[in-house]
C-alpha cells in the first residue's frame, strides 16, 4: 500500500489523474496526496490545462436546439420547488438581468450620466404650458390618431356615464330616504357611485388633455437600445402636477419585468409608474409630478423587475429630451 504522503510515488500519476485515466485506488491516493502537497497541486493545474485543450481537437457538432430550454426548465423547476412563494419575485429578477456593473470592464458610469438632457425649458413653459410640439413621423401620427379616437370615445361615453351617475345618485338618495333600506345597501350604492365618479374624473382628465391647446407635448422620445423604432410623447397637464406618457412601438417587457418611467430632475432620476404595453406596443401612463412640471428636464423608460425599482437599470428603451 502506497503512503499518500509519498510524493515520489504519487506525482507520476498526476497526468493520469488529469485525464481521468486512473483506476479508483490510484485516484483516491492522488486526492489524498493533493490535500497536503502544494507542488503537486500546482503541477496538476498545468496538466489539467493541457488536458482541457484536447476538447478543442474535436470537430464541432451543434447540440439540439431545444437542449438549452430543457436545462433552463430544470433550473426553474428546482428554484420553484425550493423557495417560499414570497421569494419567487426575487428569483425572477435575474431573468431580466440588472447587471452588476462592477463585473464589467471597464466600469461604466450610470447610463443617465452620459445622456444629454438638453430639454430646454422656456419662460413660456413656466408662464403657461409647453406648446404642442409639431412632430413629424408615423409614430406620432399614430399617437395623435389614438388621441383623436379617445376624444371621440370620451364624447360618446361621457353623456351616458353622466346620465347613469345621475340615476345612481337618485337611487342612492331614494335609498337613504327609505326606512326599509339597511346600511349595507347604502354602502354598496355609495361604492358604486364612488367608482363612477372616479371614472368620470378619469374621463374628464382625458377630455382635458386631449383638447388640443390645453395639453402639451414636451418630449419626443427616440429609441435607445430598443431595436424597434419605439417612440413616445410626454404630455404635461395644465395643472402642472400631472403628466401623461404615451409610448408606441415597444415590445412586451420580458417575463418577470415591467417598464418603468423615470423623470430627470436636476441631474437625479425620479422613479415614475411602471407599465406594460398592448399588442401594438402602445401604452399610456399617467404620472404624478411632485413640484413644478417645468423643473423636469427629461424622461426615460427602462426595464425593471416586477414592482419597479428605486434606481434605474441600464436597460434603457426610451430617452426623452428636447433635442
Amino acid at each position, binding site marked *: 500500500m502506497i503512503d499518500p504522503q509519498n510524493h515520489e510515488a504519487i506525482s507520476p500519476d498526476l497526468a493520469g489523474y488529469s485525464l481521468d485515466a486512473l483506476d479508483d485506488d490510484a485516484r483516491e491516493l492522488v486526492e489524498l496526496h493533493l490535500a497536503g502537497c502544494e507542488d503537486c497541486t500546482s503541477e496538476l493545474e498545468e496538466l489539467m490545462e493541457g488536458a482541457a485543450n484536447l476538447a478543442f481537437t474535436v470537430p464541432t457538432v451543434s447540440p439540439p436546439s431545444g437542449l438549452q430550454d430543457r436545462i433552463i426548465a430544470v433550473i426553474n423547476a428546482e428554484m420553484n420547488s425550493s423557495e417560499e412563494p414570497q421569494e419567487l419575485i426575487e428569483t425572477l429578477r435575474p431573468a431580466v438581468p440588472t447587471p452588476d456593473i462592477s463585473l464589467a470592464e471597464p466600469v461604466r458610469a450610470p447610463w443617465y450620466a452620459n445622456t444629454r438632457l438638453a430639454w430646454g425649458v422656456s419662460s413660456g413653459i413656466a408662464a403657461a404650458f409647453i406648446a404642442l410640439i409639431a412632430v413629424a413621423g408615423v409614430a406620432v401620427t399614430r399617437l395623435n390618431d389614438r388621441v383623436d379616437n379617445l376624444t371621440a370615445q370620451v364624447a360618446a361615453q361621457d353623456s351616458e356615464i353622466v346620465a347613469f351617475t345621475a340615476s345612481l345618485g337618485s337611487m342612492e338618495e331614494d335609498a337613504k330616504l327609505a326606512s326599509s333600506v339597511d346600511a349595507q345597501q347604502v354602502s354598496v350604492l355609495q361604492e358604486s357611485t364612488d367608482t363612477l365618479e372616479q371614472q368620470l374624473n378619469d374621463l374628464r382628465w382625458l377630455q382635458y388633455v386631449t383638447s388640443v391647446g390645453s395639453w402639451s407635448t414636451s418630449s419626443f422620445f427616440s429609441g435607445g437600445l430598443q431595436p424597434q423604432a419605439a417612440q413616445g410623447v410626454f404630455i404635461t397637464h395644465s395643472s402642472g402636477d400631472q403628466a401623461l406618457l404615451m409610448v408606441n412601438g415597444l415590445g412586451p417587457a420580458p417575463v418577470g419585468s415591467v417598464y418603468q418611467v423615470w423623470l430627470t430632475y436636476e441631474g437625479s432620476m425620479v422613479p415614475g409608474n411602471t407599465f406594460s404595453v398592448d399588442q401594438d406596443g402602445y*401604452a399610456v401612463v399617467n404620472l404624478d409630478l411632485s413640484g413644478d412640471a417645468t423643473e423636469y428636464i427629461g424622461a426615460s423608460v427602462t426595464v425593471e423587475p416586477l414592482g419597479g425599482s428605486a434606481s434605474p437599470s441600464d436597460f434603457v428603451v426610451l430617452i426623452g429630451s428636447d433635442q
Partner: protein
Amino acid sequence: MDRLQRAFGPGQVAPRTYPLHEVARLEYIEFTDEALLAQIVEQDRLALECLYQRYSTRVFSLSYRMLLDQGASEEVTQDVFLNVWRRAASYKPGRGKFTTWLFGIAHHRTIDELRKRTRGKQRVVENVDDFLNLQSADIQPADSAVANSEYATVRKALMNLPDAQRAVIEMSYFGGFTQAEIAVKLDQPLGTVKTRMRLGLKKLRVALASKLRTPEL
C-alpha cells in the same frame, strides 16, 4: 391599476419572444467567463444561458466524440451545465481558467458514462486513429469560424507531439482507457505510459498557452 390605463382598458397581452431579452443578452457579451460565473453564483439564469451559448457546442462535441451517441451526449451536456449552475461557487479563479474547470467536468462526466457502458466488456483498439474524425450522418457540424480556427490550432499542436505521447493521451482522453489498460494494449511498461502522458500534456499546454481565446457569442 393605473387610473388612465383602467379608463383605456387593461391592454395586457401574453408575453412573447421579445427583442429586449436579446438586448439584455447583448449586455453579457462583454462579460468574461469568470464574470458570468459570478453572476451564476447569484442565480442569474441569463448568465448561464450566455455560457451555454459559448460552450455548449464544445461540450456536446466532446461528449459525442467519445460516446458516439447523440442522446447520451445530450444528457451529459445537460448534466454539465446543471453542474455549472449548482457548483459555480466552487470554481476558484486562482486555480485555473474557467474552460479548464468546465471541460474537466465535461470529460469526467463523459468518462463515467463511457465506463458504465463498457464495464465488463472487452474493448479493442486497433489504431489510435479510430478516435479521430468520427462523424455521424445525423449530426450537423457546427458552423463557426472561431470553432474551426481553434480546432485547427489545437489539432496542429496535438499532431506535433511525438506519436508515442499523442497515442497515450488520445487513448486515455477520448477512449477512456486507464493508464494500466493502455500499458497492456501498447505492451509498454506502466511507468513509460505515465511519463509519456505527463510530457505530452505539458508540451500541449505550452504550445497553446497564448493561442486560445475565449470564444464569443
